[in-house]
């Protein structure tokens, strides 16, 4: 049996007394797409940063194709090898690009670093083409681009490294609906063309449904539910997952009932493992 593409084993990380990530494990198969869903403070972003290496774990391990990722890179070779394992697309396209570096320069820097023997120019054109940016955008500075275009640049920059895993931390949350759909489609296309695996961090269940095969639901640093995306969304087992699903505005939406459900869940009496089926009485 082949090793999974990405495996997180019992990750833990505390900030002071807060257990931001508390025993999180998951597996991302080759070419798969895994969503991490949760509210703010659920530890999903910290998990992502541990996987990428921007944050270290107090305990636990991240493995890429069976090989443990060192917590700190020593020397140039290891640094570059680490970068080729996991790349990341950040939430805010307005802050994730250096305001002084032009689009083609961003890509050239990365290509020169990772593939010093190759001529970067054809690859730059290829990457821009892949993310749907014309050559006209190549000379532009970030401030001359719209939010969606910047996010395309950020995706191209991550793809330039040819990573095994792409971590997308709320990568479409800051975008307008119409642009968000373009980027989600782009991500679907890239997955079809390359064997890349996605780790998709989001609070938006609609987005999860759109781009992931499997999903884990996090709350207070731990995984409360995991499974195939379609199944989890169709038949949530954990009350928190149900609360998240109910929180999405829809016709006949009753915010009062959701507020009450949330109160119930956050009260100390709540039993996280208990399956309460017919909890839909109006307040």
């Amino acid at each position, binding site marked *: 049996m082949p090793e999974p593409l990405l495996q997180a084993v019992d990750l833990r990380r505390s900030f002071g007394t807060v257990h931001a990530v508390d025993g999180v494990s998951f597996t991302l198969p080759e070419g798969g797409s895994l969503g991490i869903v949760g509210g703010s403070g659920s530890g999903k972003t910290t998990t992502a940063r541990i996987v990428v290496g921007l944050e270290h774990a107090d305990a636990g391990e991240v493995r890429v194709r069976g090989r443990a990722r060192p917590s700190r890179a020593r020397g140039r070779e290891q640094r570059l090898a680490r970068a*080729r394992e996991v790349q990341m697309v950040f939430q805010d396209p307005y802050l994730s690009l250096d305001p002084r570096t032009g689009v083609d320069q961003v890509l050239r820097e*990365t290509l020169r670093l990772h593939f010093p023997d190759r001529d970067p120019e054809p690859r730059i054109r290829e990457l821009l083409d892949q993310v749907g940016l014309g050559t006209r955008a190549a000379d532009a500075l970030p401030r001359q681009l719209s939010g969606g275009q910047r996010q395309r640049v950020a995706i191209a920059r991550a793809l330039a*490294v040819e990573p095994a895993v792409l971590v997308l931390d709320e990568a479409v949350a800051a975008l307008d609906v119409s642009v968000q759909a373009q980027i989600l489609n782009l991500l679907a296309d890239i997955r079809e063309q390359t064997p890349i695996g996605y780790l998709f961090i989001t609070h938006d269940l609609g987005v999860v449904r759109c781009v992931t095969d499997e999903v884990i639901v996090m709350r207070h640093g731990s995984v409360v539910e995991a499974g195939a995306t379609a199944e989890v969304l169709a038949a949530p087992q954990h009350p928190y997952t149900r609360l998240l699903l109910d929180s999405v505005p829809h016709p006949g939406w009753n915010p009062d009932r959701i507020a009450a459900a949330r109160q119930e869940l956050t009260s100390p009496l709540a039993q996280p493992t208990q399956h309460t089926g017919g909890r839909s009485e109006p307040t």
Partner: protein
Amino acid sequence: MSTVLTRRPGLAKLRVRSGRSPLHLVCLGLVASVVLAALLAPWIAPHDPNAVDLGAALAGPSAEHPFGVDAAGRDTLSRLLLGARTSLLGPLGVVAFSTLAGVAIGTAAAWRGGWLDSLLSRATELVFAFPGMLLAVLVISVYGEGLLAPVVALGLAYLPYVSRLTRSLVLAERARPYVSAYRVQGHSALQICLRHILPNIAPVVLAQSTINFGYALMDLAGLSFLGLGVPPLTPDWGRMVFDGQTAVQHGYPLSAILPCLFVVLTVVAFNVVGERWADRVARRDR
């Protein structure tokens, strides 16, 4: 950006806010002409600044000596022009030293954090606690006269202002996702600092350095006036005020007042230009 440049209160009143202010243009012109005068001094000075003509001592303005002659019979205009060289060269050294060292220390402290940050921050605070002029007087008394000793001493005294500013700027810049992005991409810390962080914070640091230039000029002129620093015969504005003070008592104030005026005008001009630059940078960042 939340960082505020260091400004001395007295000069803050001269801050220029409006878009195209005449004061700013006048000051920019003043800075340009002082720098030009310093560069071209040997060619445009009408007399040898050290040529003594005792017969004409303390003479008023005339066609031959437009700004008059000092007590030792030297042409004031020529001394002012050549004095611009030492008067500008000193602050330039101070600013260059404090900026380069301050940026290096501030960046290292902010990027590495931890013990290095504590060590460097404590060290700069130690220098902070020591009055710059006093430090300069001390260094001169140990190493004797010459331009180098006061420049190094003042450079040290100005360093904490720059390093503290740089440290906070780098800390803010480092928290931005684009820096994380470069780290994830496998770029080394040095590359990220040199290629991305420093160019982004440079305008703010350079604006501070321009302001520091004015202060350094004032401090060095003060040292020269006290008879410290530049050797006696060198033409220097501060030294000229010192040389001219006895003449003031005899009713011939011109040779002391003119260099005073030049110091004041140049300091104000550099400050206005620097403040305005800082304001422009602050506006652009918003």
